[in-house]
């Protein structure tokens, strides 16, 4: 380049600036001699003018993902870590969250819904991999209301067309029972209350299976049944020391919440066990009650299939015949009386004939809370004449209209003056 000097080697004036590499150089185009070099390193003041490009910006990763979605994805990952789920679960849950976020109805939803959505994706993943996780647990972790959670869950299952299997009761029993703090002695758990985990689990599973067979599980929340079964299993393994312990105290010892329906599930299960005990000859003479039957739970469970068959008769076939009596119209008539009497699981043994009770869900055995009379047959055709008088009863008179307008005006005036004298 003219005016930039000459090459010290060959004297040529053809010098070119080579900024091809990271270091600027002035090079002679004739002989290739490097006349001058630029600075390889930067000074402090130079670096002040440099702009660093972060990795995520250089890859453009975050340009396609909104802030709320990023927050949601972080939430999904945090939930998976808190629940100690396998890594593959996290990937699936994240994928579901991303799919859900693309739906218009979810993208524009409130933050509360998006928070809950993270829990829904984790729950769906766990259900599909048969990992027992209840909605109650997720709601507790999210501090969310079950109503909000259920709405979002049903919506997302429908929108994404997902196939979500039911919660496996056996797995739930194993997980839930393992959370009871009764397998090691501690200052809060005396030695007589400590139990072997495997024994307790095995007996609880048998009791839950019995509850399922006798219609105590279908249509009900699973946890209260499992809590009641765990309590009975624990009591029956050492009844002499544990019969005095109540369900509430048991849950407190085990450091587990007591679900409200657990007490009634417990009573139902005890009633079933009492019915079964009546079929065992050596227990009939003992005149057992709901406390003493606990001591014999081991024997009852050992023969449970046979005892259930003997203690209960199939309610399905009986329903048609005995249905009117069971409806609780208060008209026991012969066979009806016996059916009503034997259908109540609460009556003490010995006070009525030991005919097998109906094996039906408790909701079918209780009399209805209110009698629903059959509606009268309507002869309306839809084309009847409509009388003027009938319509006029729904119209205001001119005086009523004036009065209504005065009242409205007075109300508006009162609302207009917030601090009346």
């Amino acid at each position, binding site marked *: 380049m003219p005016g930039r000097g000459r090459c010290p080697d060959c004297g040529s004036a053809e010098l070119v600036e080579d900024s091809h590499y990271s270091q600027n150089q002035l090079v002679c185009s004739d002989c290739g001699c490097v006349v001058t070099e630029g600075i390889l390193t930067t000074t402090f003041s130079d670096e002040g003018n440099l702009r660093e490009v972060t990795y995520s910006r250089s890859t453009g990763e975050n340009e396609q993902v909104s802030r709320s979605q990023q927050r949601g994805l972080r939430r999904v990952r945090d939930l998976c870590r808190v629940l100690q789920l396998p890594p593959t679960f996290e990937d699936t849950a994240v994928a579901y969250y991303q799919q859900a976020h693309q739906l218009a109805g979810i993208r524009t939803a409130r933050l509360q819904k998006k928070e809950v959505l993270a829990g829904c994706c984790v729950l769906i993943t766990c259900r599909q991999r048969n990992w027992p996780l*209840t*909605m*109650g647990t997720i709601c507790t972790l999210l501090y969310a209301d*079950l109503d909000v959670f*259920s709405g979002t*869950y*049903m919506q997302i*299952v429908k929108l994404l067309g997902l*196939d979500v*299997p*039911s*919660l496996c009761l056996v797995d739930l029993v194993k997980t839930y029972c393992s959370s009871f703090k009764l397998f090691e002695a501690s200052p809060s758990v005396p030695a007589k209350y400590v139990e072997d985990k495997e024994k307790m689990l095995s007996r609880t599973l048998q009791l839950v299976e019995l509850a399922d067979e006798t*219609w105590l599980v*279908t*249509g*009900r*929340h*699973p946890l209260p049944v499992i809590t009641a079964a765990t309590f009975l299993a624990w009591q029956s393994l050492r009844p002499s020391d544990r019969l005095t312990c109540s369900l509430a105290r048991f849950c407190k010892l085990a450091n587990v919440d007591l679900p409200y329906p657990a007490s009634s599930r417990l009573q139902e299960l005890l009633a079933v066990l009492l019915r079964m005990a009546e079929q065992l000859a050596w227990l009939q003479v003992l005149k057992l009650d709901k406390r003493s039957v606990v001591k014999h739970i081991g024997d009852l469970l050992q023969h449970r299939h046979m005892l259930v068959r003997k203690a209960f008769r199939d*309610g*399905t076939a009986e*329903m*048609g015949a005995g*249905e009117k009596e069971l409806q609780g119209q208060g008209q026991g008539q012969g066979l009806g009386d016996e059916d009503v009497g034997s259908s109540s699981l609460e009556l003490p043994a010995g006070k009525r004939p030991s005919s097998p009770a109906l094996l*039906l*869900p408790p*909701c*079918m055995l209780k009399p209805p809370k209110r009698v629903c009379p059959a*509606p009268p047959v*309507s002869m*309306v*055709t*839809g*084309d*009847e004449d*409509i009388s*003027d008088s*009938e*319509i*006029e*009863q*729904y*119209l*205001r008179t001119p005086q*009523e*209209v004036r009065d*209504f*307008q005065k009242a409205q005006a007075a109300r508006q005036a009162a609302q207009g003056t917030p601090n009346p004298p």
Partner: protein
Amino acid sequence: MPASEIAELVPQLHNVVCTVNLGCKLDLKSIALLARNAEYNPKRFAAVIMRIREPRTTALLFSSGKMVCTGGKSEEQSRLAARKYARIIQKLGFPAKFLDFKIQNMVGSCDVKFPIRLEPLVLSHQQFASYEPELFPGLVYRMIKPRIVLLIFVSGKVVLTGAKVRNTFAFSVFQDKKELLHSY
């Protein structure tokens, strides 16, 4: 269950929802002023809520002239009620007509009178059935043909909804019973 008993399982209707076009614009404020049985809170909902005693029904009247009538126990009752609302609007001075009357939804119930095991039912009908005992005690069965939703409970009571024609219910109930008869 013998075939004769299946045939007798006619669902009892509890609610019929219909729509009708009154064919004229409505001044909702003036309707709320002139009618005794109307309520109107524009900040909460942009329609007048009107009720009549016989048939015991509720109607939503929109400013476009469209009306929704709910609470009828049969298609005929629903039609009679809709006609009465239209007559009330006429008496209030609007040129109301009775166009495009259509039954939109019917809700009924029936009782198969035997208990139903919901867990195996949801396993065998996974693509149609949804059962979440933590949320709701009944099984939600979305039938495709006919397009009906059934709520099936352990007690054997079934709630049906989504039909626009009464016969749809009877057909769906019959199909449903055939499936439920043997295993559950």
